[in-house]
């Protein structure tokens, strides 16, 4: 199964409540996947600063001198904000990807969850309510975010196998379904120089979209291409720095419900996840069509219409 929730805010007044709303939505989806849970939050960025979210099994030990080690590695001002097993490293703009590649050299037991300007990803093994409480997701603000609760099928139940997956700057993806051509696609992406960390099928989908966008595709175009190149069952919900996208495979057997008001666009694996959102009674509620790409971007005055792939 797996449960997905997503929230893309149009009304800035809701931004301080993003983490709280996503937490509530994700906890409702707990019985769709109790293995592990994760949330990606697009928060406030700062000029000249990029963020790398990292995780450690031994955070007391690893995080004590991590900022100094990172400073020695990439230079410039570096700060570290710890949340339980995770920490957000603030580094000079443009250094995040370099740090992702080189972090292992100075801190081999620290794993990178995400990198970008505004994106932070928190994920662990456990129930959504416990994972959300560990990181105090409910206190976080942001413009959009995506959550996932996992029932594993294609790879081990580990922190690294939990969703969301981040494979490019400020990009993240969650997946409900299973892909059957992920091994061959992973090899192809590796040849193209795209970094894929795990044996998980969903990470390959994330890396595929990163690869397409690196080659000039928009998020919408990359999602359309995924319908041709990914084989299997999927509902994807993806985030970029300013965008939010949804696509379902042509068979569309994994459930999906969306709601839109003047204040937000919301995604849930089931309608249950959406019932506490403000104004849901009067929202436009619909099921995304199979093989159809939907995406929204901040700063665009009108909502893009669904585009048939």
């Amino acid at each position: 199964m797996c449960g997905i929730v997503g929230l893309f805010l149009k009304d800035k007044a809701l931004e301080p409540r993003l983490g709280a709303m996503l937490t509530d939505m994700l906890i409702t989806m707990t019985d769709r996947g109790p293995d592990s849970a994760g949330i990606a939050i697009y928060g406030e960025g700062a000029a000249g600063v990029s963020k790398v979210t990292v995780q450690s099994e031994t955070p007391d030990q690893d995080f004590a001198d991590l900022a100094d080690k990172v400073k020695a590695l990439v230079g410039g001002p570096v700060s570290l904000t710890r949340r339980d097993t995770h920490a957000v490293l603030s580094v000079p703009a443009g250094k995040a990807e370099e740090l992702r590649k080189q972090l292992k050299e100075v801190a081999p037991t620290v794993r990178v969850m995400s990198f970008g300007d505004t994106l932070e990803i928190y994920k662990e093994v456990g129930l959504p309510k416990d994972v959300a409480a560990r990181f105090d997701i409910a206190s976080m603000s942001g413009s959009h975010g995506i959550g996932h609760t996992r029932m594993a099928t294609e790879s081990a139940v580990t922190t690294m196998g939990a969703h969301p997956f981040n494979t490019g700057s400020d990009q993240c993806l969650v997946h409900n379904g299973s892909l059957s051509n992920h091994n061959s696609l992973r090899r192809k992406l590796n040849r193209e120089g795209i970094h894929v960390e795990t044996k998980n099928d969903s990470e390959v989908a994330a890396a595929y979209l990163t690869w397409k966008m690196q080659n000039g595709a928009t998020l919408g175009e990359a999602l359309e291409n995924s319908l041709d190149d990914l084989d299997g069952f999927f509902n994807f919900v993806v985030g970029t720095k300013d965008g939010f996208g949804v696509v379902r495979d042509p068979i569309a057997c994994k459930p999906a419900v969306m709601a839109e008001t003047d204040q937000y666009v919301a995604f849930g694996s089931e309608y249950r996840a959406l019932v506490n959102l403000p104004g849901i009674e009067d929202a436009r509620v619909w099921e995304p069509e199979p093989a159809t790409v939907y995406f929204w971007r901040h700063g665009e005055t009108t909502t893009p219409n669904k585009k048939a792939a």
Partner: protein
Amino acid sequence: MQTYDLEADGLRGLNAALHAQSSETNQTHWEIVNPRGSHAIAVGLDAPIEVNVKGSTGYYCGGMNKQATVHVYGSAGPGVAENMMSGTVVIDGDASQYAGATGNGGTLVIKGNASSRCGISMKGIDIVVHGNVGHMSAFMGQSGNLVVCGDAGEALGDSIYEARLFVRGSVKSLGADCVEKEMRPEHLDLLRDLLERGGCDAKPEEFKRYGSARQLYNFKVDNAY
């Protein structure tokens, strides 16, 4: 009338109370408030009672229904009225995938649109959809009637047996062994009755009929045991 607050009193209590009704019950009207997309609301009923659900439901609402009338004043999640035996289920809004799947009897009315696989493996149920149906609807339909006042998605009636399909709008594509068939007077009479039961003011003459060409493996006598 009995009113039941699902949020306050829980699903098991509700279904147990509904299952406790016999054919002679005098508690014939039930109202369920705060459904909030919950699963398995009013499943397995077997009494001539009326259950009104004031909001949207999750998976399997009205599943395995016998005799009862279940009316959802909202939209329904996957598998609404799945394997219904008799009675009536009415959805005011949209229905998610596999509405009325494997239904043996009774009437399912969807006033909005139905998603993919509506009436999959239907075995005698009558389904009236005021809007559109998604892909693979009536897949392997064995008997019963599916009426679509709007359009049908891809692969309508794939591998169909004896179910009858009536579509007023366009059909994106027909599935394997499904063909358009002649609309004879008896079909117009049947359709008139179905539309009336479904609360549709559409005219039977506006519809086309589809059914099995009976060319697949199972229809060839040489393949019989």
